């Protein structure tokens, strides 16, 4: 059976979603609710409340046959619809069949080396991925998943064999901190980190550094500790992301951005566990 993907946005040429030039595909829908989420409009699927319709100044959104219709041509990207949405969703999503998505991406060949599926949480639309990935491989494109790590490892295995690897978020290491950050547990995330690393499929881990929200130093140390031996057999990049208030929900944009010396200190800590590729963004 053909599955469809609900996609929030496609960036044809991205320099920040994995190595080299890649097309980044952002799926709609996430099972975490990170306090500092930088694109909260990707969290929920549309509940058809219609609240956004009246807020659109150009009439680009309307309801037809019980569906929210979005006309891109009329949109002026003012994001009034996103601000009006009470459910952290967006009317500006597009439904793709595997074929249509591959066609859209293929326009960027031969300038891209691969595709990164991000989100939202891309593995929530696993069946769709299973159909898309072989089609991309046929075109010579490698695939990276950008994931929060909550997938069932058994289920992801068939995909894993066909892709380059996973870039995994370690939002926080301790259970308590993780719940504070994401409103969810993280046992499965840490197990998956190890499972992926064992199979040399863990390409990158990343932590958003928000010192006022959780014990960032402890998370970085424990993550580095957990992965240090795997890093010896297949290099893992550690990306330390400075919290910035851009895009964060207004009521949650209450934290301050960590300063450069602190970020450098964390970088040094990761280095000391033998990680060569550590970046601050």
């Amino acid at each position, binding site marked *: 059976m053909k599955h469809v993907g609900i996609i929030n946005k496609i960036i*044809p040429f991205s320099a*920040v979603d994995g190595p*080299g030039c890649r097309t980044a595909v952002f799926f709609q829908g996430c099972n975490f609710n990170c306090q500092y989420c930088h694109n909260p409009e990707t969290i929920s699927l549309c509940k058809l409340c219609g609240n956004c319709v009246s807020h659109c100044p150009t009439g680009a959104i309307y309801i037809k046959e019980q569906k929210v219709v979005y006309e891109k041509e009329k949109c002026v990207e003012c994001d009034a619809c996103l601000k009006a949405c009470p459910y952290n969703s967006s009317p500006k999503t597009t439904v793709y069949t595997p074929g249509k998505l591959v066609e859209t991406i293929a*326009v960027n060949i031969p*300038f891209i080396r691969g595709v990164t599926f991000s989100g939202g949480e891309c593995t929530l639309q696993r069946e769709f991925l299973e159909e898309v990935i072989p089609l991309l491989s046929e075109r010579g494109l490698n695939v990276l998943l950008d994931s929060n790590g909550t997938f069932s490892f058994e289920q992801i295995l068939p995909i894993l064999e066909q892709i380059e690897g996973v870039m995994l978020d370690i939002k926080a290491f301790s259970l308590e901190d993780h719940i504070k950050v994401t409103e969810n547990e993280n046992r499965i995330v840490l197990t998956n980190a190890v499972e992926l690393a064992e199979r040399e499929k863990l390409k990158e881990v990343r932590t958003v550094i928000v010192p006022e929200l959780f014990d960032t130093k402890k998370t970085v140390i424990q993550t580095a500790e957990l992965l240090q031996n795997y890093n010896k057999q297949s290099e893992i990049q550690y990306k330390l992301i400075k919290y910035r208030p851009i895009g964060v929900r207004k009521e949650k944009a209450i934290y301050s951005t960590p300063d450069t010396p602190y970020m450098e200190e964390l970088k040094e800590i990761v280095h000391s566990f033998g990680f060569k590729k550590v970046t601050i*963004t």
Partner: protein
Amino acid sequence: MKRNFMKEISMERVNEARNEILETIKNHQLTHEQKVSKMAVLADSLMEVLEYPEGLKELMSNDPEEKVICDLGEGHAPVRPRYIIPDYQAFLEHGSEFLGLTPPRDIWEATNALLIFYKHVPSVTNYPVYVGNLGELLEPFVKDEEEAKKAIRLFLIHMDRTILDSFCHANIGPTETKAGRIILELEQELEQAVPNLTLKYDKDITPDSFAELAAKTALKSAKPSFANHQMFKNELGDDYVIASCYNGLKLGGGSYTLCRMLLGNLAKKAHNKKEFFEDVLPQALEIMALYMDERIRFIVEESGFFESNFLAKEGFIKRERFTAMYGIVGLADCVNNLLEKENIEGRFGHSKLADDLGVEIIQAIDSFVKNHNNPYCEITGGHFLLHAQVGIDSDVDSTPGCRIPIGEEPENFAEHLLHCGKFHPYFPSGIGDIFPIEVTVEKNPAYLIDVVKGAFEKGVRYLSFYSSNSDVVRITGYLVKRSEMEKLKNGENVLLDTTKLGLDSVKNSHVLERKVR
């Protein structure tokens, strides 16, 4: 051999020139060197020794909205070829009798010898437009890398402060060299406009790590640019170089002249597409070719340059290795003008019909150039080479070469690059596109190399990048520092004469408003 006599000119024209010379002398913004070269140009403007083909005068109008043919300030009695490409390797191996220099033995002697040599390489700007493949030239002298870095640092600074014009161009690659790496590392630090720099890039020869270092440097200092080595090599042979803006020429030769046709203004003279192709274009093409023939004849047969200059006498250049560049500018304006006249919707870069018309025009010019013979262009089969000229500071509403006008760039980067690939193959003596790049790419230089690889696969010849927030920026082909333009704007002296060209282009052509990729 034909000799032309000097023609009379009016006293009025003499006095006009005298007034301009006096104004130049009293100018507060120009440096001494800039005054001297400007006065030489003014004196030269009084010369009348060339025999002009019929119809040329009308096409060479001074009105920027009328002008169709332009010799880009080469003068009325060319005293030297426009672009000279000395074989520096021969100089390093044999020294020079005229300069009283023996072959250098270490990095200090080599860089010093080259710096001396550069001061004796003429060009249309009076500064060398090519300073060698520095990666290859200096590699044998790189013994202790730290010492070499010190010597090369001084060498680059010396060049930037004494070659006062950023049409001066150095090459590195396609193979990785220690010297090439040192140059890239230094340019990241120095952020200088001179010399312009090109990496000859071939994905099968140039290692990714070297190319990525080049990309990183480009995002810091707007150079090097990337030249499609395979493409240039197939057309010009292994011993091609990139000089001046981005011109592909033969080592040990150069270009006698570069004249250009402003296609946008030419289109204004036709009532419709048919008249343009059957009448207006062929006539103008013929007139410009005859004009170039006459300029070349004067340089070769009358100026005595090749008989008297030490570069030729000592074999650093050979007359037989020179060719000439047949330039065009404003393809986009030409296409859009013709489409309007035909009442066809669509704009260059945004409709297949418009792009196809662009290709049709370039093919017509290409076929003319390949059928026109000049006895002194033996090295390129007796023909001129097509060149996509980028415009000059005084141009009005003229889009560089075959580029899409600034402000009309396609949304998708891939579409833009594919458009470049349609036109680049026709221009062996140079064409290029320039893209400002998002700052985030600095952390992922492989991104740029992926783009370059894909683009070269699709027929792109030459690409330049700079970071959207760097001080050094590429204007049309040459480099200028934003900080220097600011100084000039405030009435201060600046060292490089290209800063003035840059400032005017920023005003007239919106070069700082390119779409960031």
